[in-house]
């Protein structure tokens, strides 16, 4: 018997939801497993597969903080990400504004020069930067972790994002500002920036996450435990013989991932749009 039109559409929708749910398993399961295992004992993690711990070991979350200076490392990650985001916002909007609105000799060449930078992987420049930082005497500090993301390909990408946005804005308000005797800097700060909140938000979001998740730079430039950032700290839960302390590692990983995940669930639309705007891997 043939299905009616309405029935076929319900069947298609059910098939659609079912197949997407199956595909979603490897995207969701790791998060659930990570959170639940953070409450388990090391032996239970590799026992019978179950997402509900036998006993909820809240103690894991205390041990995380006594095993290494995890609170300090957490704070490091937060303040470095904030610093990188703040500096990137200011510099990229300044340069992006000039490239979009001001005519000066060499601007086109400068653009081309910056575009080419997007093609160079950080792995290529990190070696000379290692010696540069050594020479500057800032090894095992957070200086490289702030400077390199700001002035690397990510900073260039942020500059372009800002430029594209400024180009799309109408000029009239800025010209009115000029009539009122505002300086260039005044026009940028009082007129252009307030109009470009969506672009600033996008740059802020992707820059914060970029810094928060950075791994290679901390690995190369930072060596003492109290200077670690979160990604480095997470990879460092091993006993004195180098064997991993699974339950602590997973509890710490949950602590690092879950807050970001909560913010993401609240602001998913804005965050996804930010990445769509940048169109570049974080």
């Amino acid at each position: 018997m043939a299905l009616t039109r309405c029935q076929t559409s319900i069947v298609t929708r059910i098939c659609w939801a079912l197949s997407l749910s199956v595909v979603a398993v490897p995207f969701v399961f790791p998060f659930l497993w990570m959170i639940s295992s953070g409450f388990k004992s090391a032996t239970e993690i590799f026992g019978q597969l179950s997402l509900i711990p036998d006993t909820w070991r809240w103690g894991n979350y205390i041990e995380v903080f006594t095993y290494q200076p995890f609170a300090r490392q957490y704070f490091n990650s937060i303040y470095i990400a904030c610093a990188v985001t703040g500096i990137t916002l200011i510099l990229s909007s300044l340069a992006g504004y000039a490239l979009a609105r001001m005519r000066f000799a060499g601007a086109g060449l400068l653009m081309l020069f910056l575009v080419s930078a997007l093609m160079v992987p950080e792995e290529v420049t990190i070696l000379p930067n290692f010696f540069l930082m050594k020479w500057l005497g800032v090894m095992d500090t957070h200086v490289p972790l702030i400077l390199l993301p700001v002035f690397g390909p990510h900073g260039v990408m942020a500059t372009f994002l800002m430029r594209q946005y400024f180009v799309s804005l109408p000029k009239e308000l800025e010209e009115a500002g000029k009539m009122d005797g505002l300086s260039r800097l005044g026009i940028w700060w009082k007129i252009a920036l307030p109009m470009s909140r969506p672009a600033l938000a996008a740059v802020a979001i992707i820059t914060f996450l970029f810094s928060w998740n950075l791994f290679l730079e901390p690995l190369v430039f930072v060596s003492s435990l109290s200077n670690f950032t979160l990604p480095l700290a997470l990879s460092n839960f091993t006993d004195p013989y180098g064997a991993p302390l699974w339950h602590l590692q997973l509890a710490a990983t949950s602590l690092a991932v879950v807050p970001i995940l909560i913010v993401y669930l609240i602001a998913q639309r804005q965050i996804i749009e930010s990445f769509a705007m940048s169109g570049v891997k974080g």
Partner: protein
Amino acid sequence: MAVTDTTETTARKPRAPWLTLRRREAIEGWLFVSPTLIGFLIFFLGPLIAVVFYSLTEWNLLSQKSTYVGLANYTDALRDNPDFWHVIRNSVIFAAGLVPLNMALALGLAVALCRPGKGVVFFRTVFFAPVITSAVAWAIVWKFLLQGEAGAVNQMLAGIGIDGPNWLREPNWAMFAVIVTRVIKMVGLNMILYIAALQAVPRDYEEAARLEGANSWQIFRMVTWPLLAPTTLIIMVITTIGSFKVFDHIYLMTGGGPENGTLVLAYYIYEQAFEFFNIGYAAALAIIMFVIVLALTVVQLLLRQKGSS
């Protein structure tokens, strides 16, 4: 004549101020870009040039001595050191596995999720979540899930009667595992780029094709897919370059093992530079990586030009 006239008149008048509006604008423009430009020269362009010089020296950090050796590091990599070609082979396998898988899955998900409807936002949020998650966290969790017998993946496979391999301990399976877990981590990004492109496809075209009697597959094949070509190309460039840069994922999941089965170029550079301190050799490897990435970009951009003409 008119030109000379004006110069004479201005010459007779009191001197025009040096700071004309145009000059002022140019100076301000350079001032606005200067913080970015100076930082960029010091921390990016300078190092890029320096790495070329490093690559021409024999420089081991332990001996604290650097001597000029010409192209020896390059011939060492390209001719003498079998590790190098092994690493290149691994990187190519990684990219050849990751890029098509990532793009096909991204496109499939985008087609399923490009029209507004119930559940669409939920699924988009789910598929994008790994993108914002730290690669370190992602690699740590998957390393656990892929453990031999006790790992969750193999326990699930056992549930449906499949005896799973020890994923991260056998070279071929390890490569397979790092590719698939990396795809799951990053596919959400390409998915949203494809969704944006699909939403920009004018509905009229598809409607017209439908009126002509084309079925959904034909419409996709003949109308939508060609319109997606520019996006496909950009995604391909970004994803391929990204796959050659992958480091943290492999560092944490396999450490390049087993038997160097997942030792890829970015990891090899790190190892030579910061574990073995072969600075000159690592610099040469970095230059080779730069050339590969550049060549890939140029080839793909040329393909686009050929496609559009």
